[in-house]
């Protein structure tokens, strides 16, 4: 089912939940709503579900405005973070509930519930009470209940947040696989950018009720259109510096206090064309390296830093370093054996450097 949101807004006397959200979702597409807590993801999703009445704007399913259509008539299934199962019913009771309301005949209910339950790997738990299930099983029941009525649109509201990391990983794959196999359009709300990046065809990044960007995952990562998106997508988050762009001997340099780095010509020219005295420069932690045999110092792109913090992440170490008084995060190979207090030389890979207008926080490279 094709979904179009046009200037969709929701406010409760003064409190803004969602502010003029406009986006379209193609049939069969998997879209993630990504943003920090309180940015309006759930609000937008509940408007799509028909639970919240929009204060403005329209929602269209396959070209028809559905603003006034009741939730039960929208052909949707929804999975909640809290699972929202009915604790007084068995697993069978929960999954069959939508069908029982539709007065589907008993044998068909049995068949369809069993089929969905088998698909979710809970086929042998149908007689269990909800409280007798683990969190992962409960979420499978909830997913089964959403799927059993064969919806045309699946809505997920942070469905994996209450599960442990391992289970989250498995469920992530399973949800994605199910969605692809069944070809159902899906909206997936999450504050976890890894989840969004790995699962979604396109990601809608939200902040403060406003849609910040709507793009395919790689574009969000490589061509962030706002500083917010750049900082939110990618983990650990991007480093930002206030810099001036200076042209010297046909070469462009980013300068501010202790920072002085040579820039690639194409990006620097675009940034300089914005005509701003100051810009915000963004460099990802994974684009900064420790200088050693494998990574020789590059002229004009090397700075000396002191290591303040070392956070082991397993395969890599996340370093908190300072170049004089400028703080930044650097992601390095664990084998480099970085230790707190060391003075090290850092080489900057500037090929994917980003620049933002300090006033509007919009990218000066991508529009």
């Amino acid at each position, binding site marked *: 089912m094709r979904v179009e949101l046009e200037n969709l807004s929701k406010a409760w006397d003064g409190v803004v939940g969602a502010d003029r959200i406009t986006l379209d979702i193609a049939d069969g597409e998997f879209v993630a709503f990504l943003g920090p807590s309180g940015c309006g993801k759930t609000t937008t999703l*509940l408007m799509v*579900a*028909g*639970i919240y009445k929009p204060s403005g704007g329209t929602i269209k399913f396959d070209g028809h405005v559905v603003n006034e259509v*009741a*939730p*039960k008539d*929208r052909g*949707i*299934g*929804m999975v*909640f*973070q*809290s*699972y*929202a*199962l*009915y*604790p*007084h019913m068995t697993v069978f009771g929960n999954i069959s*509930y*939508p069908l029982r*309301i*539709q007065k589907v005949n008993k044998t068909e209910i049995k068949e369809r519930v069993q089929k969905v339950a088998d698909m979710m790997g809970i086929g042998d738990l149908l007689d269990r009470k*909800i*409280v007798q299930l683990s969190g992962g099983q*409960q979420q499978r029941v*909830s997913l089964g*209940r959403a799927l059993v*009525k064969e919806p045309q649109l699946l809505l997920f509201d942070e469905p994996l947040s209450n599960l442990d990391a391992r289970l989250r990983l498995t469920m992530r794959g399973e949800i994605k696989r199910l969605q692809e196999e069944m070809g159902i359009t899906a909206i997936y709300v999450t504050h976890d950018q890894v989840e969004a990046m790995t699962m979604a065809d396109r990601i809608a990044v939200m902040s403060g009720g406003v849609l910040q960007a709507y793009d395919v995952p790689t574009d969000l990562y490589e061509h962030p259109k706002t500083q917010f998106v750049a900082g939110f997508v990618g983990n650990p988050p991007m480093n930002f510096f206030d810099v001036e762009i200076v042209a010297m001997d046909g070469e462009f340099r980013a300068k501010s206090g202790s920072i002085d780095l040579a820039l690639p010509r194409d990006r620097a020219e675009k940034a300089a064309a914005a005509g701003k005295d100051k810009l915000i420069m963004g460099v990802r932690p994974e684009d900064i390296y420790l200088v050693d045999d494998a990574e020789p110092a590059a002229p004009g792109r090397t700075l000396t830093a002191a290591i303040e913090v070392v956070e082991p992440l397993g395969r890599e170490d996340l370093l908190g370093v300072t170049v004089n008084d400028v703080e930044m995060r650097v992601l390095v190979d664990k084998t480099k054996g970085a230790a707190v207090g060391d003075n090290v030389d850092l080489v900057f890979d500037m090929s994917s450097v980003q620049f933002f207008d300090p006033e509007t926080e919009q990218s000066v490279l991508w529009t």
Partner: protein
Amino acid sequence: MGSGKTGRFFSYAFLTLSIVPILVGYTWLVIATVSTRTRGLLPINAEGGIGGLTLGNWSFVFESAIWSAMLNSLLIAVAMVIGVGIASTSGGYALSRFKFPGRKGFLTGTLVLHAFKAEMLLIAIFFVLRWLGEIPLIGPYIGFNSVGGVALVMVALELPLGIWLMKGFFDNISWDMERAAMIDGAGRFRVWWQIMLPQVRPGIAALALFTFIAGWNAYLVPFTFTIGTKVANMPVYLNQLISDTAPVNWNQVAAVGLFQMIPLIIFFIFTQELLLNIYAGGSKGT
């Protein structure tokens, strides 16, 4: 309380001591009902010696008045449970879930009204009941000097508590469960009936119990708004035994009192488990 054995010993000792007066009271009540006279906890015969046991105090069970009083008590209590139950579960749900003009005022209003003692309202209620009694056809059943009228007043007096109690229980249920049900295809009424009510069963049980006891023991309202024995309930019947002119047979009063308690005791024995679970099992699960 302290730890280990000493702590436990003192807890038990304290609890035992504190129920002694109650136990003594009930023991006396039971002994008195089968005695002509008592001194302390001992039955006394005419000569002043121990003895004089009799079943004479229980002769009232052969009179129709006691059974009619019991029936009236039961009617009032059951009508209250039903009336308070329906109004509180639906009103409490609405107050918990819907936004509507006057919601806040209604909530504080009921709370304030609850603070007024029934005594203060007696005269006003009298006029209301008299007026209700003049309604054609149903008037005689819900007006002054009718069991229905008494039940109506008692329901009204109990509602603030009931509505607030149920609102509290509904407030504790996640909105998501309700949203899930609406997406699953349920309308408002179905959500309330099939999804929400089962979650607040402990609350309904507690409310039903409190209401039943309040109705069973109702005295002031039935005493004020009924005349004569036909519409008297148990407490009113009991009061009629204590006449101003003739000497009171306290042993018979004790017997009627005990008789009135019997249904409640049976009720408690069967619902004890439930009562203990009411607050333990409230909102487990999701």
